[in-house]
């Protein structure tokens, strides 16, 4: 898909995200919107996968370690045909297949359950180790929040990926600078983030996480990696709530659903009304 097509797809994804969280009356608006372009790049351009065959062994894997961005993942899966887009409006309801945080046993196309922060990179590493034993060259993508870098397990896993030279692991940090309680730098500083990952033995690239011209080549670098290479991390500078100015750059929309008026304003801005 060309960049223009990706931008249009991301616009549709943001509309889905806003509508489903509004409908559910709860959910993580800001971090879903900040990840929308990255998610679009993964599911509509970068990843090899077959919506008609979710367990295809050759597929690239994706672990949403920042599981609270589930609305972005569910939108991507529905838009790629893993399930009917109408189901998006069942988000967070009793008996819905779309749980508040991803549940691989319920949702077609979800490769790993997540939600408790800090655990996804370990899971991605294990996947890469297992695939490598079988000579499978599929890539394993994992998306972390920036606040999530405060979890100690992330750094245990960062050591593991470098130690075992898991070249097919590519981590993406959705670096929107905000977490529930405020700015990441105020809550618990994580900088210098690029230097930290570098010193843990990773190839680091920092990009504008809303510019497909930068995102796509950064993610595709994993294809050039061997099975026994240094792991890669893409630090994607993003804006929390991106696409709807009412939510942009505001920590308070980390875990708050849009009101009726906010939804209307946002949809207008996204050219949907």
């Amino acid at each position, binding site marked *: 898909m060309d960049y223009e097509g990706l931008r249009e797809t991301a616009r549709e994804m943001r509309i889905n995200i806003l509508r489903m969280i509004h409908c559910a009356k709860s959910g993580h608006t800001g971090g879903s919107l900040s990840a929308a372009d990255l998610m679009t790049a993964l599911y509509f351009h970068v990843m090899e996968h077959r919506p008609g065959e979710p367990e295809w062994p050759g597929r690239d894997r994706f672990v949403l370690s920042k599981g609270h961005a589930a609305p972005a993942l569910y939108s991507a899966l529905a838009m790629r045909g893993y399930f009917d887009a109408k189901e998006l409006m069942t988000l967070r309801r009793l008996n819905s297949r779309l749980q508040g945080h991803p549940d691989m046993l319920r949702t077609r196309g979800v490769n790993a359950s997540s939600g408790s922060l800090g655990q996804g990179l370990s899971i991605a590493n*294990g996947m890469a180790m*297992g695939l490598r*034993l079988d000579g499978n060259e599929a890539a394993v993508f994992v998306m972390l929040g920036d606040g999530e870098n405060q979890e100690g397990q992330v750094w245990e896993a960062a050591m593991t990926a470098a130690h075992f030279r898991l070249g097919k692991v590519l981590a993406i940090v959705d670096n929107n600078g905000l977490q529930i309680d405020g700015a990441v730098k105020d809550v618990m500083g994580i900088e210098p983030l690029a230097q930290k990952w570098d010193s843990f033995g990773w190839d680091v690239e920092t990009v504008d996480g809303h510019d497909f011209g930068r995102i796509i080549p950064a993610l595709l670098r994993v294809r050039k990696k061997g099975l026994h290479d240094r792991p890669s991390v893409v630090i994607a500078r993003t804006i929390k709530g991106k696409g709807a100015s009412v939510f942009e750059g505001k920590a308070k929309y980390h875990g708050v659903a849009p009101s009726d008026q906010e939804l209307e304003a946002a949809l207008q801005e996204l050219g949907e009304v």
Partner: protein
Amino acid sequence: MELLGTRDVYGEVLLELGRKNRNIVALDADLSGSTMTKLFAKEFPERFFNIGVAEQDMTGTAAGLALAGKIPFVSSFAIFASGRAWEQVRQAIAYPRLNVKIVASHGGICVGEDGASHQTVEDLGLMRIIPNMTVIVPADGVEMRSIMQTAVETAGPFFIRTSRMKFPVIYSNGASFRIGKGDVVREGKDLTVIALGLMVSEAKAAAEVLARKGISARVVNMSCLKPIDRELIAGCARETGAVVTAEEHSVIGGLGSAVAEILSETYPVPVRMVGVKDRFGTSGTAPELLDYYGLTSRDIVSAAEEVLARKG
């Protein structure tokens, strides 16, 4: 009396199973010489992952390996495998029902001289409370072999506790472990002693002493703590009218709790729990500690006499 280490059997059987099944992989957190995964590591270095002193990462990594179709065996000391990595076990393994086998060594207090930090009287409770988990404590090395076979053949998360100390062999004629089934290792009619792990042989010794006093004690090996054999427990209560539980674990949350939960709902009879009474461990030799915490056949005999008095 023949002695066999459950962790030694683990190391041997893991290696044997690994030779037959290429999908078996093993992970350890810098304790492979103690948990006995070192035997597997030596023969299959490419299928062994030493994650270093990082139990949480090890547990998540095992989940990922299971997602890639492998059968990961994860080992550390029981307190770290169950406690340090508890939430990783819950979220990454049990919730998605992944095929990960946690085989944790150095369970209980007979870890000995290392003391409270490395002993655990909480692991069985911590694991039993998690949905989808199967929790097993072998009564001897022979049963451990059978348990390992079952674990490989059965999909889903398992927690299996082994010990540093060698156990007396109970099943010298072979064991056939079954998930969800307890095993009556001695018949009796006056009361039932339900035990697991090392305490099964202590219970058998207690039954001998009780027999000399004219008391007929049934002994049940409840190696499968979860899913637990409700029918057998209720049946023993109905048939013998009194129950003693015995475990190398806190009386809170482990076997005693599980039996009491079932009997209170099915067939209430007097129950007495032999176990660690809400205390941390301490340094000492294993036999000294079993005596200090009241985990010997003598303690089971006293508990049996007390519970019989209440039976009336």
